[in-house]
């Protein structure tokens, strides 16, 4: 006869326990979860706001449970236990017998006895229902205060920011995350958090929550008053031990169900795991130790001897978008010698505690950049002997040569997955990251080891002589670079030809624009010949904006414009009621045009001598310039003329991603050329050519490719550089990212572009000549073709305009109205 195992609670740890036990053949598992959802990922609760959906958080699949014969009862609570009769009674009043009972009741948020805590607008942050209620309420609120600046409090603050609320965090201790990081680490974290607009109140105590029925503010004991409409309390957790207590199990004085090293409670037939358990006087509020408890309890039930003997509290998290990690002994002691790296500029703080002899890493703290966390914790847990120059190795990041990890190294701490296990799975044919994680469970807990899993995957594939999967998508078993070769060698001219030559299926939103871009970069034919494979911006030659209208940016080479043309832009904007804004690239953006208005607008612009600005394309955007030696008393070269020359030469050329450029007339660099894909800075003797810079999300300075060169030589190098990038970069990869993945870096680039080490420069120049020769203004083509103009209709069966497009007005101009019923 099978033993009946009843699990009380269906959180992350219970789910893990069931997974571990379900392979046993002599048990019959029933699990009760009081929430209406099956087990979900509580650790990443704030990611709910990324997708506005809870689906991505779910861990347990009810169908898989059913398949294994596990009874899952969601929305049902267990109300009482009779240990003598070995039965429980659920919230429906039904009684169930058990042989083994597992309490995975988790914890409840601790709500301090603050006056006003029962008012509408006070929330705790624990469940999907909590965040849904917060989301609904937040629509009427503009600001929130989070009480508690620990791990959960900061997660709640992120949620609050994601809901668009002005956010305060109130912490009683004088620093954030007092249990995980030191004072300096906290100060770095504070800087980052403040830069996001969160207001911090450290060393502050809440006196009262104000308001009649609803919250209208929070009063601090210092007398300070915060005006907020929402309060989120995350002042710690309390183990849920009431059920255990009421049936006579031993519980701790300050809460928690007492367990031994096999997770058995004072009744040998009852186990407790997760945040509800009190082990050697300690309650663990992290998921990794909970998972270990789950494994130990499952093992004990099948007669194993695995023991839980305490747990390392190492943790690596992204809090409010900031990496924070703490491992081993984070604070150190008198014996340990810390290495501290503190870079206020980039906001990175690292503290590594070395043993007295400097040869072992005992623990540390990382704030701002925890990319080395996986590696460092390996050193700590394996007791690896460090090389002599430990500081360079530990703080120099990826450039330093890391010693190879031992096969037994535990990569995923949450799930106890060793490097050997991952390597074995890859060797056995599991070569896709998602599948690898699913099979080995590595990276499915806190996710902190995901970069290491991916690194091990790629390294193992390389060792096996296999290439890393860089296929474009399911329709093309090729990299972008391979497709460039196929298209150019076989002279393919349309998506359909490319698909039948080397693809399968009908294509998708990934490969269609990617192939269209390669075709355009190869032949520079009119992209509208194949309009249905283009992204909407390239299909309608304008940038789609909120609400489905488009924006228009005429080319203004080098930012130079006559008064007559300025007036035309003004007249067009006025006639079609377009919102006007000056762009960062010295151009003028006209927003809010309906699709059917675009050809008329462009007809008028073209009549006045304007051309397409290609703001919609993965193509050269703008070449920004200063006024240069013509006007500026410091200028040494004519930057404006050179910028116009460059912009005229490369306009309209399609590339793997957009290209931005700038030319500065002297060393003061007013045009910011070093933040562009390619930029020139004037010198006394000529020009310095910089490449592969970027602004945007990951700013990167451009690197110097050549110094003191003439205009003509600069153009020659640029021809080669641009075509080389077009040929070899992956789709949607900016030059900066492409550059970072180039083996050999700038030396390689110099040898290819300047020394012609690959012997391809003549070919690169020819390709550029072809592209320049074939340039045509796309909008000019459309305006003069009735057939192309006919494609710019909102509906094919009527000339009506789209009535769903509506505007509001602000500061004398229009803006998109919020769509009816939007926001879910």
């Amino acid at each position, binding site marked *: 006869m099978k033993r009946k195992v009843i699990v009380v609670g269906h959180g992350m740890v219970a789910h893990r326990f069931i997974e571990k036990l379900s392979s046993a053949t002599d048990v019959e598992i029933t699990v009760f979860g009081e929430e209406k959802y099956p087990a979900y990922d509580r650790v990443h609760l704030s990611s709910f706001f990324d997708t506005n959906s809870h689906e991505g958080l779910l861990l347990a699949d009810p169908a898989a449970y059913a398949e294994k014969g596990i009874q899952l009862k969601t929305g049902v609570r267990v109300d009482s236990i009779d240990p003598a009769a070995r039965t429980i009674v659920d919230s429906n009043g039904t009684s169930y017998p058990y042989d083994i009972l597992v309490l995975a009741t988790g914890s409840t948020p601790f709500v301090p006895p603050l006056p006003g805590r029962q008012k509408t607008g006070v929330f705790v942050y624990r469940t999907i229902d909590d965040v849904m209620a917060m989301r609904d309420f937040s629509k009427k609120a503009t600001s929130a205060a989070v009480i508690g600046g620990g791990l959960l409090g900061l997660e709640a603050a992120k949620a609050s920011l994601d809901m668009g609320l002005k956010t305060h965090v109130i912490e009683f201790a004088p620093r954030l995350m007092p249990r995980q990081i030191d004072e300096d680490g906290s100060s770095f974290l504070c800087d980052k958090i403040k830069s996001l607009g969160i207001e911090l109140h450290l060393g502050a105590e809440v006196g009262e929550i104000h308001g009649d029925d609803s919250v209208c503010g929070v009063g601090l004991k210092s007398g300070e008053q915060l005006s907020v409409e929402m309060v989120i309390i995350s002042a710690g957790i309390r183990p849920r031990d009431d059920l255990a207590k009421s049936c006579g199990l031993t519980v701790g004085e300050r809460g928690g169900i007492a367990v031994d090293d096999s997770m058995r409670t004072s009744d040998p037939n009852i186990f407790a795991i997760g945040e509800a358990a009190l082990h050697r006087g300690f309650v663990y509020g992290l998921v990794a130790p909970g998972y270990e408890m789950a494994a130990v309890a499952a093992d004990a039930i099948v007669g194993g001897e695995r023991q839980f003997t305490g747990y390392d509290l190492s943790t690596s998290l992204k809090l409010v978008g900031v990496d924070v990690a703490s491992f081993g002994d984070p604070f150190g002691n008198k014996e340990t010698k810390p290495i501290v790296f503190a870079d206020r500029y980039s906001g990175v703080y690292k503290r590594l505690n070395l043993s007295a002899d400097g040869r072992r890493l005992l623990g540390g703290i990382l704030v701002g950049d925890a990319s080395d966390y996986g590696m460092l914790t390996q050193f700590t847990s394996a007791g690896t002997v460090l090389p002599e120059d430990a500081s360079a190795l530990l703080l120099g990041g990826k450039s330093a040569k890391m010693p190879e990890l031992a096969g037994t190294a535990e990569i995923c701490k949450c799930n106890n997955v060793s490097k050997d296990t991952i390597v074995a799975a890859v060797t056995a044919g599991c070569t896709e990251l998602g599948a690898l994680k699913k099979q080995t469970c590595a990276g499915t807990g806190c996710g902190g080891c995901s970069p290491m899993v991916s690194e091990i995957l790629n390294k193992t594939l390389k060792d096996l002589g296999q290439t890393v999967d860089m296929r474009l998508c399911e329709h093309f078993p090729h990299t972008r670079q391979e497709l460039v070769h196929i298209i150019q060698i076989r002279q393919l001219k349309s998506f359909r030809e490319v698909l039948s030559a080397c693809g399968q299926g*009908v294509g998708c939103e990934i490969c269609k624009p990617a192939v269209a871009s390669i075709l355009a970069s190869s032949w520079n034919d009119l992209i509208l010949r194949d309009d249905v494979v283009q992204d909407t911006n390239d299909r309608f030659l304008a940038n789609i904006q909120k609400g489905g209208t488009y924006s228009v940016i005429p080319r203004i080479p080098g930012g130079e414009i006559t008064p007559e043309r300025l007036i035309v832009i003004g007249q067009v904007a006025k006639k079609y009621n377009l919102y006007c804004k000056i762009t960062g690239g010295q151009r003028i953006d006209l927003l809010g045009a309906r699709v059917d208005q675009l050809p008329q607008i462009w007809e008028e612009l073209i009549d006045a001598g304007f051309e397409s600005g290609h703001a919609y394309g993965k193509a050269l955007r703008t070449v920004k310039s200063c006024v240069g030696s013509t006007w500026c008393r410091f200028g040494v070269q004519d930057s404006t003329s050179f910028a116009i020359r460059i912009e005229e030469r490369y306009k309209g050329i399609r590339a793997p991603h957009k290209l931005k450029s700038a030319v500065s007339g002297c060393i003061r660099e007013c045009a910011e050329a070093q933040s562009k894909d390619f930029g020139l800075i004037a010198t006394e003797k000529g020009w310095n050519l910089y490449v592969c810079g970027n602004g945007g999300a990951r700013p990167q300075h451009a690197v110097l490719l050549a110094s003191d060169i003439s205009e003509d030589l600069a153009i020659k190098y640029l021809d080669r550089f641009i075509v080389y990038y077009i040929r070899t970069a992956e789709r949607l990869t900016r030059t900066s990212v492409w550059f970072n993945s180039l083996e050999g870096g700038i030396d390689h680039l110099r040898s290819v572009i300047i020394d012609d080490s690959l012997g391809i420069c003549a070919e690169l120049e020819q390709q550029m000549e072809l592209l320049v020769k074939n340039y045509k203004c796309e909008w000019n083509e459309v305006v003069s073709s009735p057939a192309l103009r006919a494609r710019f209709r909102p*509906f*094919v069966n009527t000339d009506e305009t789209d009535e769903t497009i509506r505007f509001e007005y602000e500061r004398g101009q229009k803006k998109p109205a919020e769509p009816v019923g939007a926001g879910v």
Partner: protein
Amino acid sequence: MNNANLNWMRAGAEADFPRDGGVVVKLGNRQIAVYRFENETDTWYACDNVCPHQNEAVLGRGIIGDKKGEPVVACPMHKKVFSLKSGNCISDAGYSVNVYPVQLKDGSVFVMVHETASNAESLPAEQKVR
């Protein structure tokens, strides 16, 4: 399906619809995106033009294709990918659109539109033509 013919509404001439792409038709007060997958089988699909993610009338301007054989359209705004057979969003399970049967007759395209959106869910999602 016999009496359903009453609800077939003419959406335009076949020649007005691009090959392997989508356009929008207005039927009554509704905006409906119509897609033609000419490349392999010449199958037609139709769904709401409004993407439920941000309620923007743009789906007809999305790129069509297949995901493991399932015909799909990707919203041009945030790349939510919808199955044109079921109407379900396969990149974000929280969303779905109504899908409508399409039929060709004598060079004209017809879409079956129902009085209320809730009716739509019970109708067969796909209508093969030819």
